[in-house]
């Protein structure tokens, strides 16, 4: 029962990481941009869901949909205003801009909500008992959603024209236009999808942990970034895989040794792992023909 419970824990934590990591990977895969504002958009989604649920008494599904749409629009807007002018600039300039946007979002939300908030429960608290271990409806939902979104995204990116265009943009943006592809629109779709996913993560997270604060995007955002890279950044399936691996590592370490060693051991394992697979699980080194 103990082990089963921990396995469920791994699945839940991994799914939460995964939902955010997907957004990172998505935007990275296309724009070669580590969107460090992603964690904060996730946070914004959490607060939005709080506002909708607490003040306007929206039920779950509308809340989720509105959050997705609004945050996706924010993502697109941020891309238009802050990243697009930097299309010709070095890659890091955009990364730094993203960091700046992230800091701005955090502190902006902080102006209005300096106190942590309690998000109303929108999902019925049903729990099942499996041989002493408990699993809730919410957990099942989160896990299912993570896997579903991963498969959907994978389908979009690898098997549709838009996905193909996205991958082509990541290689050579100018030439994509010469193929008759509206580059700006594809980039907007990418950001909409990526941040929309972050919004899903934000809403589900707020339901799972109920307490939200303006800084929650940072910690979990960095962790999700790590997941995306372990999986091979830019790779959709890799993101989910990386998320479950990081979650498993963190929880297993706690299981077998004092939890004070959790970070040391997890991150050392990570370094060792990268020494053998320098480009993550499913990542490939950029093909470069000399």
């Amino acid at each position, binding site marked *: 029962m103990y082990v089963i419970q921990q396995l469920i824990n791994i699945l839940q934590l991994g799914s939460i990481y995964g939902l955010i990591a997907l957004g990172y990977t998505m935007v*990275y895969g296309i724009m070669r941009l*580590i969107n460090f504002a992603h964690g904060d958009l996730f946070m914004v989604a959490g607060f939005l869901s709080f506002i909708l649920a607490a003040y306007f008494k929206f039920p779950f599904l509308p809340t989720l949909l509105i959050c997705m749409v609004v945050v996706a629009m924010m993502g697109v807007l941020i891309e238009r205003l*802050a990243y697009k*002018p*930097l299309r*010709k*600039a*070095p890659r*890091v*300039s*955009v*990364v*730094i*801009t993203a*960091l*700046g*946007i*992230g*800091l*701005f979002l955090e*502190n*902006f939300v*902080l*102006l209005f909500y300096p106190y942590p908030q309690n998000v109303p429960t929108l999902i019925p608290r049903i729990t099942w008992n499996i041989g002493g271990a408990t699993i809730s409806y919410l957990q099942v939902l989160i896990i299912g959603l993570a896997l579903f979104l991963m498969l959907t995204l994978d389908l979009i990116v690898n098997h549709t024209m838009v996905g193909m265009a996205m991958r082509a943009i990541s290689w050579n943006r100018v030439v994509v236009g010469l193929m008759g592809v509206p580059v700006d629109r594809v980039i907007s779709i990418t950001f909409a999808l990526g941040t929309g996913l972050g919004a899903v993560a934000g809403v589900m997270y707020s339901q799972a942990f109920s307490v939200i604060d303006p800084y929650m995007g*940072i910690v979990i955002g*960095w962790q999700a*970034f*790590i997941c995306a*890279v*372990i999986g091979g*950044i830019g790779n959709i399936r890799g993101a989910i895989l990386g998320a479950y691996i990081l979650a498993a590592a963190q929880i297993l370490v706690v299981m077998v040794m004092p939890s*004070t*060693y*959790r*970070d*040391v051991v997890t*991150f*050392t394992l*990570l*370094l060792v792992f*990268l*020494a053998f697979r*320098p*480009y*993550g699980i499913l*990542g490939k*080194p950029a093909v*470069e023909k*000399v």
Partner: protein
Amino acid sequence: MKTDEKSGVQSPISYLRDHRGATGNNKLIVWIVLIVGFALSFAIPQFNIVNGYIQTIIMYVGINIILTASLNIVNGYMGEFSLGHAGFMAIGAYVASLLTLHVFPSSSSFFFFPLAVIAGGLGAALVSLIVAIPSFKTRGDYLALITLAFTYIVKSVIENIAAIGGPRGIVGIDKLTTLPWVFFWTVLSVWIMRNFVYSNFGRGVLSLREDEVASRLMSVNTQQVKFLAFALSSFFAGVAGALFAHLLQYINPNVFDISKSVDVLLMVYLGGIGSIGGSILGATIYTVLLEVLRPLGMFRMVLMPLLLVFLMIYRPRGIMGLRELRWLVPGQELKIVKRWRRKKVVNDANPAS
């Protein structure tokens, strides 16, 4: 001495062109600045020319210059994206503080403090191997992850060692960091990093940023270069950490979290990558601006990131952007073509030699 024999091609910004025409008498100005600065660094605390608060900020500026310039070696000159500077800083801070607290006698700190600072730097440089070795195999965002993981590891290791205070940190560190010391270390660090950047090794680092494959095929020992760049960069992060600890008089693992790395990162890119002068400006402007905007209270933290974003949009390469302040470039470097021409004229005149 503009040489325009070629036609048709002009360069938009040629970073060398910017210090073309620089002459030897810059040297004089530099010396004057140094001497006056050093004298002031003694006089200010002695005669309280400015108040303690401003003195503290000046010292932060100095320490931040060291941090920024050293991170610029890896992030700007080598073109990597390291997120682990706070980790190296932590190592420097801990090593130096433990030495001044428990090993060195506190009586002759004038002699021992620099030793402790150097030891802090060396400690950080040694540990930087952990990051340098994976960098032989991978780069870019994967290396960013490695450095990020490294920060977590450093923090967590310190938290787990009760003997060095664990999460409670180290208290009661002597306030050995003074204005003259900060001035001295800042000048020394900038000078050494400048020398490195304009040496054979520095050019090797630059070539890595431009094209790693080509640079190996042009005989650059990339492993050596990466190793040196990481070691030097972390050494000075360690030095800055040591100075920081002896200014704060208290350190704990939380002081060196990712947000510290992010701060330094922002200063580097604000000032401009691949430019020591940029680092000096970036660190100064960022640190001073944060203080100047203090009266805005909460809005300060909303305004600062916005300013940064605007700056990035209008100057994507930072304030200096690959260019260098003229007086930071070694005179020798500026005169290569001129000297060579003169020599050639002489040689052509007497072919016997």
